[in-house]
């Protein structure tokens, strides 16, 4: 299981951190400082793996950015190297030839993509298409949300309600709204993923071999 992933620049500035084990902030800072220093001190042709405490560090540099993962003793170094690469590919595809600035200004997106790809330190979905589809759906959903449920109306309604309408009425109204909402969403969902069928087909094909 991956214990954490750090993205930092050649200048040693941390750009992204993801921790899959509970650690105190102090400990996280200490680890980050130590690792950034260790990795930056290494020369370009050196190998991408090193032993550190009782963990294995796998890192790779992409342009000005270092991607550094800590994995456990029994984990596979090479596949972790490719996890890094796949993540870079995902970022690249999403932002369109990604650069450090994209990650700085859209750090939240970088997190969302990472969460779709890795969860709890394990690969969740390794298909590039599927990860990006999930992210794009979420992006569409944002626009959809903005379009469907105009929040000013909602909030004024809520203010009004809490003032003088009985709460039961409010509840009913909300319920109605949310079911409508959900149904519309799932309709959109189906419409948005025509590949869904092909996917299951290919799964079946795999089984027959």
């Amino acid at each position, binding site marked *: 299981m991956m214990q954490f992933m750090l993205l930092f620049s050649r200048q040693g500035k*941390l750009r*992204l*951190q993801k921790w899959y084990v*509970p650690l105190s902030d102090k400990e996280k*800072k200490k680890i980050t400082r130590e690792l950034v220093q260790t990795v930056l001190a290494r020369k370009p*042709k050196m*190998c*991408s793996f090193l*032993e550190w405490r*009782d963990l294995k560090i796998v890192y790779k540099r992409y342009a000005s950015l270092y991607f550094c993962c800590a994995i456990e003793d*029994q984990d*596979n*170094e*090479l*596949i972790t*190297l*490719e*996890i890094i*690469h796949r993540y870079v590919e995902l970022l690249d595809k999403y*932002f*369109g030839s990604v650069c450090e*600035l*994209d990650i*700085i*200004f*859209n*750090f939240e*997106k970088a*997190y969302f993509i990472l*969460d779709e790809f890795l*969860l*709890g*330190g394990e*690969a969740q*979905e*390794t298909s*590039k*298409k*599927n990860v990006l589809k999930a992210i794009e*759906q*979420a992006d569409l*959903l*944002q*626009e*959809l*949300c*903005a379009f469907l*449920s105009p*929040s000013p109306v909602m*909030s004024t309604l809520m203010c009004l309600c809490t003032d003088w309408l009985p709460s039961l009425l409010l509840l009913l109204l909300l319920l109605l709204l*949310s079911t409508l909402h*959900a149904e519309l*969403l799932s309709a959109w969902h189906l419409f948005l993923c025509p590949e869904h069928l092909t996917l*299951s087909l*290919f*799964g079946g*094909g*795999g*089984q027959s*071999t």
Partner: protein
Amino acid sequence: MPAVSKGDGMRGLAVFISDIRNCKSKEAEIKRINKELANIRSKFKGDKALDGYSKKKYVCKLLFIFLLGHDIDFGHMEAVNLLSSNKYTEKQIGYLFISVLVNSNSELIRLINNAIKNDLSSRNPTFMCLALHCIANVGSREMAEAFASEIPRILVAGDTMDSVKQSAALCLLRLYKTSPDLVLMGEWTSRVVHLLNDQHMGVVTAAISLITCLSQKNPDEFKTCVSLAVSRLSRIVSSASTDLQDYTYYFVPAPWLSCKLLRLLQCYPPPEDGAVKGRLVECLETILNKAQEPPKSKKVQHSNAKNAILFEAISLIIHYDSEPNLLVRACNQLGQFLQHRETNLRYLALESMCTLASSEFSHEAVKTHIETVINALKTERDVSVRQRAADLLYAMCDRSNAKQIVAEMLSYLETADYSIREEMVLKVAILAEKYAIDYSWYVDTILNLIRIAGDYVSEEVWYRVIQIVINRDDVQGYAAKTVFEALQAPACHENMVKVGGYILGEFGNLIAGDPRSSPLVQFNLLHSKFHLCSVPTRALLLSAYIKFINLFPETKATIQEVLRCDSQIRNSDVELQQRAVEYLKLSSIASTDVLATVLEEMPPFPERESSILAKLKKKKGPGAVSVTDLEDNKREGGELNGGGDRGPDTSAMAASNASTPSPSADLLGIRSAAPIGAAPTSAGSLLVDVFSEAGPAAPSAAVNDDGFLSSAPPSEDPAAPLSEADDLLNKFVCKNNGVLFENQLLQIGIKSEYRQNLGRMYLFYGNKTSVPFASFSTTVSCPGELQSQLNVQSKPVEPVVEGGAQIQQVLNIECLTDFSEAPLLNIKFRYGGALQNLTLKLPVTINKFFQPTEMASNDFFQRWKQLSQPQQEAQKIFKANHGMDTEVLKAKLLGLGMALLDNVDPNPENYVCAGVIQTKGQQVGCLLRLEPNAQAQMYRLTLRCSKDSVSRRLCELLAEQF
């Protein structure tokens, strides 16, 4: 600005980030951040309700500030508000904030959990995934309490979307890791295993991580996953590179899933089902074959993914350790990688080979790569790769290549990185000791080690070389010669001076014949280093000097001169001053005889596990496979420890023990506990004795001060048994060899063996003094009814035991019928005119005549029931006298002589044993059951024997043992 800004960008956030990036100095940045924090605080506290967008923007800014490395202690409430919003963008940012900045405020957790609960039940897959991601990211105990039962349901429900299943599987894994007690196995477990068959590759990829973790903890419950995993793997491995569409990565089909499948299989032994096993072997062979095929792409991603699977497959092959063919193929493959131009591959190949070297099937194959590995050690530019090479050399070392490997490691040490020197030194020291065929090589190696890397040679290493030189008389002369030569170097390391001082002090006489190393030359050489050394080394040298006075009387005047000078006798260091004063006094008043006794050659050290090994283990931690392996080999391989037959206390004892070889494990155990004259550095205690002996007062008076001897009446009648005789007896119930008795004069060692109803016991009487024992005689008697139960015959011993010598006596014992008393051994001798008289109990107990009996559970309980008469059973409940460690208990029960039966008692905590006592007249069947209660620190011991007196006696004897 970013190339794309998908979703709704937050202008305020982008502006803030630009501002920060434009800051010229750290101070300006901090100023800007503080300004922003103040702004956000006031917005959050303000009366005006913030709209969702602003809240989101500010929470994002807080996140950004946190990621810059600043502490954030507010905003959690606003984040929770956001995640309860049903606007997706707000919810998403709320969840992100909570995931990154977890806060253990319980009120907050309650609110978060509420929001998560709503989202989980929303039936909206996107919301469900967000909630699951949050649980997986935070994974706190509170969350486990709230959702541990809910998530398995989501995972196995038929109508759950695939993407939700994936998140649920990994979310559950996280909860299981943090709070395994809250994730209860249930009806869902079997359905989880079947996710391995899921049509959606993503679901399998996610679920397999969960299954792997669960099957590590409950292998039996998940056993079915083996065949499922094998068939899934086989389908992937045999698929064409395009079959799996987007799960194919640079022409490699599903590399992540393949690795995870191979990893899962490593939780289990090789499949028992022949068909499954055949299929798996086929897979592994295909993977090995593919490694030989030309690459389908020049991209490094292609080869990485392919090799990731290959290395995982090799790990599985090593884990099984049962397919010689595959092991050798794996080794050859790794051998190719050793010379690959990719540094990463060389590193991994060295690492994998380390584990391969410990398999008996592939050890030889690994050894063929020795030249490449040595080359790697010399030429690799990356220290982490060199470290791997050194590890591998250590792992592949055996008798055949030890000299070469040790030489290479030594030469590498001269240039090795400081970070790994100490570990290298330990490894060299261990290999040199373990594979030493001739000891001169060993001594050379260690002295070289000190010369090359003296600063990194820890105490353990130089202690060890001295222990070995002292214990092996064939190497002492060589050692003295070599250290003498090594000390000639103008600058030699302090550790070398220590070893040199010690060895010349002990064995300098062995090279004193040569005029080039005459006593005085030796002394001058040592003393020339004296002033450059630290206090402990100087102390050691002073002890070496006093030993010189004994070895070479001609140096006495010179040395006394040195001791007498102010820098010694008035040294500001108390230890040095005391030594100088005492040694000076000792050298002037003691007679040569007394000096010879006090400054006698050190007795051999007790054999024990090399302290170096222990140190390396501590340094390396659990990763060091080769170290444990080394330990296993130690008994057969430890030539140096072959001296284990030797007793540590007197050299005479050692000689006689060596002539009657025996499994000496027990001996060693006790010996190390026996008092041992330590290095000359602790000569203080010796001095006390010497002065009292050397004084004009009657020596016997001085000796009679000793508590024990004065209590023994100086009469010709056998003394009453010692008060501690029973304790001594109890010590030997579960073992046959050891030191029976020891005081300042005499040591009695015992070694015994029993077969059927007969036994033979060897008694070793060692004279610990330098004065002969006169009129030495021993008698063995069987008091009372024992006479008719036990027949003990002894041969008379020689009447004189010379000083420092040891004599042996053999007793033949025959058990006629069962007995409960112990025979008595009376020893009389004259020491300096005073009669010594003592009586001991000989450790002959009824259990010595046990024959172990193996039986199955049914037999045991059938017999147990047959012995159901009340007098046949003896039971005792008693408090534990010693620790309740399982291994120790087992060893004791085995030592008792009965067979220890596994899988008989339904309670695995309990021990049951069975055996038959062989006497001349009859056989007595005995069954034993010992029930420990660790909580109360109590035992219940039950014995059932076909003869009631035996039950009682065994029960008495055993109750003292645990």
